[in-house]
C-alpha cells in the first residue's frame, strides 16, 4: 500500500467548511446582487476556495507526489491560453454587427434576445411564466 491507512485529515472539518462556504455563496448570490464586481469577486473566491479544498483533501492532492501534480498542472495554463485568445475575437469584437445573443423576433426585427426588459419580444421566457405568454403567431 502506498500510504497509511487513514486519510491524513479530518473529513468532518473539510465537509463543514464546504458546507458553510456553499451556504455563504448561495446567500451571497441571492442577496448581494449589486454591485456586480462585489458579487462576482465574492462568488469567485468562494468557488475557488471550495474547488481547492476538494482538490487538496478529497482528491488527496495535498499528499501526492510531484509526479501526480505534474499531470494536472499544465491545464490551468492551457485554460488561460484558450480564454485569452478567444477574448478579443468573441468577447470584445467590435467588428460585429450585433453582440452575442441577438435574434430575429416575431416581427422579423433583430433584437437582443437576452434583454430582460423585453422577454416576450425576444424568445427567452422567464422561468415558470410560460403560460402567461401568448402563443406566437405562426408563419412568417
Amino acid at each position, binding site marked *: 500500500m502506498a500510504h497509511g491507512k487513514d486519510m491524513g485529515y479530518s473529513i468532518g472539518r473539510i465537509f463543514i467548511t464546504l458546507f458553510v462556504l456553499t451556504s455563504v455563496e448561495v446567500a451571497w448570490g441571492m442577496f448581494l446582487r449589486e454591485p456586480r464586481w462585489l458579487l462576482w469577486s465574492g462568488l469567485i473566491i468562494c468557488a475557488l476556495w471550495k474547488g481547492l479544498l476538494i482538490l487538496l483533501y478529497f482528491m488527496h492532492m495535498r499528499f501526492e507526489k510531484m509526479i501526480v501534480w505534474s499531470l494536472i498542472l499544465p491545464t490551468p495554463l492551457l485554460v488561460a491560453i484558450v480564454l485569452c*485568445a478567444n477574448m*478579443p475575437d*468573441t468577447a470584445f469584437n467590435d467588428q460585429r454587427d*450585433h453582440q*452575442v445573443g441577438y435574434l430575429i423576433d416575431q416581427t422579423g426585427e433583430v433584437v437582443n434576445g437576452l434583454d430582460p426588459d423585453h422577454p416576450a419580444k425576444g424568445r427567452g421566457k422567464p422561468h415558470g411564466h410560460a403560460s402567461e405568454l401568448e402563443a406566437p403567431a405562426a*408563419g412568417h
Partner: protein
Amino acid sequence: MSQATTHAANSPHLEPGEGEAGTVRAHHDHHELGFLRKWIFSVDHKVIGMQFLFSGLVFLALGGLMAMAIRYQLAWPWRPMPGLAWMFPATGGAISPEFYTMLFTMHGTIMIFFVMIPLLTGAFGNFLIPLMIGAPDMAFPKLNMFGYWAMVPAFFFILLGFFVEGGHAAGGWTSYPPLSTIESAAPGSLTGQTCWLLGLTWVGVSSMMGAVNYVTTIVKMRAPGLTMMRLPLTIWGLLITSLLQLFALPVLTAAGILQLLDRTLNTGFFTPTNLQVNNITPDSFLYGADAVGAAAGGQPLLWQHLFWFYSHPAVYILVLPAMGFTSDILAVHARKPIFGYKPMVYSMSAIAGLGFIVWGHHMFTSGMNPALGMTFMVSTVMIALPSAIKVFNWLGTLWGGRIHLRTPMLFACAFVSMFIIGGLSGIWMAATPVDIYIHDTYIVVAHFHYVVFAGSLFAIFAAAYHWFPKMFGRVMNETVGKVHFVGSFIFTNMTFYMMHQVGVAGLMRRTADPYAYDVYQHLQPINEFITISAFCMFAWQIFFVVNFFHSMFWGKRVGRNPWNAASLEWDAPSPPGHGNFDRQLEVYRGAYEFSSPDVAEDFIPQTRKL
C-alpha cells in the same frame, strides 16, 4: 537495482498496476485462444496494433483513391471519369461540384483521422511501446482493446455518411460554420456533417483511451535500468504525442459536440444572427416558422479557435512519432549513435509545447484580431527552431556513419529530405503579410503534403520495412522495396513540388474548376503534369502492397535481430509471443550504442552487461 529475476511461479495473480517493483509473475491459463479471442477481441497489444495497421491501410487506399479523383478533376474538369459512369449516372461519370467538395473534405478527414493517427499511434504505437520498453503488454490491456473498439463506431459513422441524403460532409476537413451548421448552405450539411461529427467524436474517444494507456505504460512499465534518458526516440515521440492528444483533443471533442448541438438542437454557438442563405432567411432562424427555432447570436470565429487549438497540435501528432521512427532508423542503419540525443528530446518537447500557442496561424486572414496575428506569427516562426535542431542532428547522425542503404534507411533519408521542404515552406505561411497572399493557395497544399505525405507517410513506410521482421518474423523483399522507394520518391516530388509553383501563381485550393477564372487558365498544363505524377505514384504503391502481403507469408525468415539494432524490441523473439520477452531484461545503456570502440561488434544491445 534489486529486482527478482527468478521465476516466481507461485506468486498470486495480480492485476496490472498492482505488481510490486520487480515482480515476475507467471500466467497459468495457457490454453490456446480461439480465433475470436485471438484476433478480434484480443487484449494483446501486438494484435491490437495489427488491427489498427490493417484498418489504417484500408482507409489509406480509400483516401488515396479520393485523391486520385480530386487530381482527375483538377486536370480535366468535368470530364467523365473513364469507367465510372455507373457510379455517377446523373453526370455520366463526371464529378459534380458538390461531389468535389465532398471528395476533398473526406480525403482530408480520412487521411488525418483514419489513416495517419491510427497508423502512427494506433498501429506502431501499440506494437512498439511495450516491446521497446521491455514490458509484457500495455498497462491496461482491456482499455487498449476498447481503444480499438471505439474506432468501430467511428468507422461506421464515417462510412455511413457516404450513403445519406445529400452525401457526406462537404465543408472542408476544417468544417467552418455556418457552412457546416446551416442545412441549406451545402448538401453535405444535411446529414453528412452529423455523421462526420459523430465519427470524429469516436476517433477522439479512441485516441484518448490510447493516449492514457501509452503514457502510463511508458512512465510506469519500463524495464529495470531503462531510465527516461535511455528511451529510444520513437518512444519519446510517442510519449509526447500522447500528451498532445490528452491536452488538446478534448477541446475539439467539446467543440464538435457544440457544433453537433448547433445542428441537431438548433442552438447557435457558432452562428451569428440574421443570415440569409440562398437569399432567404433559413426557416430555422425565424421565430415561429416551425416547432424549433434557432438561437443564433454566436460567433463563427469561436469554432475556428477551438478547432485549431486541437488541429494544430494534431499536425505535430502526425509528425512527432514519424520523427521518432526516423531517428531510430537513421541510427541503426548508419551504425552511429544519435547525434545529440538530449537536444533531440528537448526539441521534441519544445515543438509540442510551442505547438499549443501557434494555432492562430491558420486564421491570419479570418478576421482575427490582427494584434493576435502578430503574436501567433512570432511563436510560429520560433517553432522552426526546435525543428532545425532536429534536422541538424539527423544530419549529424549520418555524418561519419557506415550507412547501409537498405529500404527503411532510404525512406528515412527521404523523410529528412522532404520534411525540410515542407517545413521551410511553413515559414512563408507563418509570415503574416506573406500569408495574406498565400493563405488557401496551393502553397499551403504543397506545404502540408510535404510534411504529412512525404514526411509522415514516408516515415510510416520506413517503419513498416524496419519493424516488419519483428511483426512477422520475416523481412520484406529488399529489391522490390527499393523499386517501391525509387518510384515513390520521384513521383511524390513531381506531384507536390510543382504545387508550390501553381500556389505562387495564386491558384486556390478547394476549387472544383480553377479555370473558371481567367487568372488561372494557363495553369492547366502544369496541373495535368501533377495529376499524371499522382496517378503514377498511386499505381506505384502496388509494389508495396504486393511486397507487404507476399512477405507476410513467404518472405525470408530472419532471426530476432536482423538489423543488429540495440534497442529492446530486438531482444524478443520474432514475432514475440504472448508476454513478449522470454527473460527478465536488464538495461544498462541507451538505445544507440553503435560502433563503440569498447567491443568487437559494432553495436551493444541495451541489455548487455559489459
